[in-house]
């Protein structure tokens, strides 16, 4: 019978966490953005394999990039904590987690701009410089978009828009933020670690 397919007596109404279309839509966008970075790194490795030995003008340094990686990972941790607090209905911890994550993201961007300034090459020196600045530039743009999302859900938290059930925008911003951090680890591994492993 027709009723057989509708077994539940009640259904939740509206935008509910991972049931919301928005969360699934964000996963689709993440697939696409993930591909974008895969193609950026493909281009890096293509150059590195084609030119070999002397393609990299200077072995990468970790003074700024190392701590900056830790800062970005830490921001993910705070955002995760904020999202979990939202799920438990702790409004204050939720807002705190989001705003700390946001500030750590901004600090990452500031340090990254110093890292850019310290490079002895520019985007127009050789293909290595082009690849480095365009790849990290795309990533910084994604961090900025993620930070804008965190700022929005932080502001909406202050307005009291969310509770235990109604918190889909926080989950959506958080999963995007974790994705941006994961992408950084791939970029960090490619640009900073593989030269020491003998690639390029």
């Amino acid at each position, binding site marked *: 019978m027709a009723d057989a*397919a509708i077994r539940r007596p009640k259904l939740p109404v*509206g935008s509910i966490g991972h049931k*919301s279309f928005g969360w699934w839509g964000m996963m689709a966008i993440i*697939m696409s953005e993930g591909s974008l970075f895969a193609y950026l790194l493909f281009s890096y490795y293509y150059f590195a394999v084609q030119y070999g030995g002397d393609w990299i003008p200077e072995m990468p340094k970790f003074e700024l990039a190392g701590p900056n990686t830790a800062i970005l990972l830490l921001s993910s941790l705070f955002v995760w904590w904020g999202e979990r607090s939202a799920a438990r209905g702790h409004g204050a911890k939720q807002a705190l987690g989001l705003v700390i994550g946001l500030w750590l993201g901004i600090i990452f961007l500031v340090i990254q701009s110093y890292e850019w300034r310290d490079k002895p090459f520019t985007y127009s*020196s050789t293909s290595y410089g082009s690849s480095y600045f365009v790849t990290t530039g795309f990533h910084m743009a994604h961090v900025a978009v993620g930070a804008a999302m965190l700022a929005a859900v932080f502001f909406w938290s202050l307005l009291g828009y969310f509770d235990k059930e109604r918190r889909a925008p926080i989950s959506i911003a958080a999963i995007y933020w974790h994705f941006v951090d994961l992408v950084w680890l791939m970029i960090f591994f490619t640009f900073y670690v593989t030269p020491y492993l003998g690639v390029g």
Partner: protein
Amino acid sequence: MAITNYDRPLDLEYVRPQPTAERDLARIWEREPGLWGWLSTVDHKEYGKRYIATAFLFLLVGGVEALVMRLQLAGPDKRMLTPEQYDQLFSMHGLTMIFFYAQPVLTGFSAFLLPLILGARDLAFPRLNAFSYWNYLLSGLFIYAGFAMGYGANDGWFNYVPYALKQYNPGPNMDFYALGMILFGVSSTAAAANFVVTFLRARAPGMSINRIPVLAWGTTTASFGILFSVPAVSLAFFMLWTDRQFDTHFFNWAGRGQPLLWQHLFWIFAHPWVYIVVLPAMGIVSDALPIFCRRPLVGYTVVVLGTVATMVMGFGVWLHHMFATGIPYLALSFFSAASFVITVPSAVAVFAWIATIWTGRPVLSTAFLFFAGFVVTFVIGGVSGVMTAAAPSDRQLTDTYFVVAHIHYVLIGINVLAVMGGLYTWLPKMTGRLLDERIGRWNFWTVFIGFNLAFLPMHWTGLAGMPRRIYTYPEGLGWSAVNLITTIGAFILAVGVLLLLINIAVSRKRGFPAGSNPWGGATLEWSIPSPPPPYDFEVVPVVASRHPLWEEELAEAGGESSVKRGLRLDNGKEMLATTALDAEPDAIVKAPEDSIAPFVAALAATMFCAGALVLSWIVSAIGFGLLVMSLLVWLWPRRELGQIAEARGG
């Protein structure tokens, strides 16, 4: 009961014989009148029709470009066009047909039909759908604005470097193309994400993964392809633009760039794109052909698996476009083998269609003729594809008219013929009027004969050694007669396309009223009136088999589907979210109301790119600010959508 209560008990209701004033679905879902309503509507049916109409406009423009080229090539030593004009014409023709006709027309079918065949009231993201349409239209106008000013793309649709770089191509032609394609990529990605989520999460209860119509499978598979492949070409065009404007060195040999990197990135995108512009068309045929054969599709499961397998393998064959570039023999062998293997899942679909015709009782309607013609040209295009998949023969055939013949058999054969058949099938659902069958026969035969007359001899032109993309050719090489035949065929094909447009125009006034199910179709869209009401389904249907409207004849279902009784969901704009595999009801979702924000966002994104084109950062900054503002308006949590916390017990 407040509309944003957290939970709601479920009651099944019957379709009502008379509309009632109380909670009238039509009033809840219909758009505002006037220009404002036209710009701000988010109805998927509206955008489906706009997509198809816009794509046909681009088809006509691209077609006229082709006819002008055919006049030039009709005989030897013609000088009607200068080489530069000819370059722009073949480039604009290719990119128009491939990007602005072939995929958007299928997006139009999907935007209109996907919710209807899945039993939903709209796509998962109605506003995103509006945005992707406007962005598509504006990106097309962006590239054509360049052409109108004399700066059309002039390096072929695949736009190889180094000729696309600034030192060889100093005008803004390439910048129009590059930035326009980035805009277009945003549009197609948005549409793809929308289709994927709708497919996974917005099906009628009971429409488990093995009961979904093949058209929805084709659309979704192609949408996954778009999500994974479009970033490659957007990135390639971005790199090209920075190489041209900011002296980066991605493709420029002097700065330790790699010209071949362009070809890799382009074909990593463009080969999957070939499947993206045919898989939904194959879905159209797999769903519509059985209606005219009066039996279910033979081999549903293998056809679906073949669809998915084709897309997956489609990502592993891009190098066969680069056989002549001097890549290592190991890579040649691998990609050649992969290109042979990919013919297997496509052949599965061909045999399934033939078996469906063979074992069915075909009704020789115009739509059936188009689908049968589609199968024939698919086989011819497939065989010439196998010939180019073999690396040794490809060395001989590459950059000749043989490849041009192949791509036209694939794109016209598998896209245009399926689209025309699809229009004869579903246009009555869109407009409520049937197309004329007598004009339809003339339409089919002129298209089919004109097409084959134009492109079958072109294989021979290629084998005789005529290279593609030459603006004229001398006498005495044996190419003259065959080129004249191709030109005549192209004009007959054009007459056929005009007949379709005449048929559509005539049917709007004089067409026979279609009724809800003119062809006796099996799927949910045939259970509602033509044209569908603004809310599509008065009650959410419940599905118990693959052919909800054929259950009595087939006796195939354990239960029975219900299209007359179900959830009415009339507490504002509402639709049902269901689980991804079993399609069990999961939540009642509030659909967004009309908004101008998607239109403004698309305008703002175009303004951003226009600023980048002329390197005017103020224009770009204003566009960017407008974009951020419209996104905030668009996405701000709304109480009526159940996005904001409520006091409990309200």
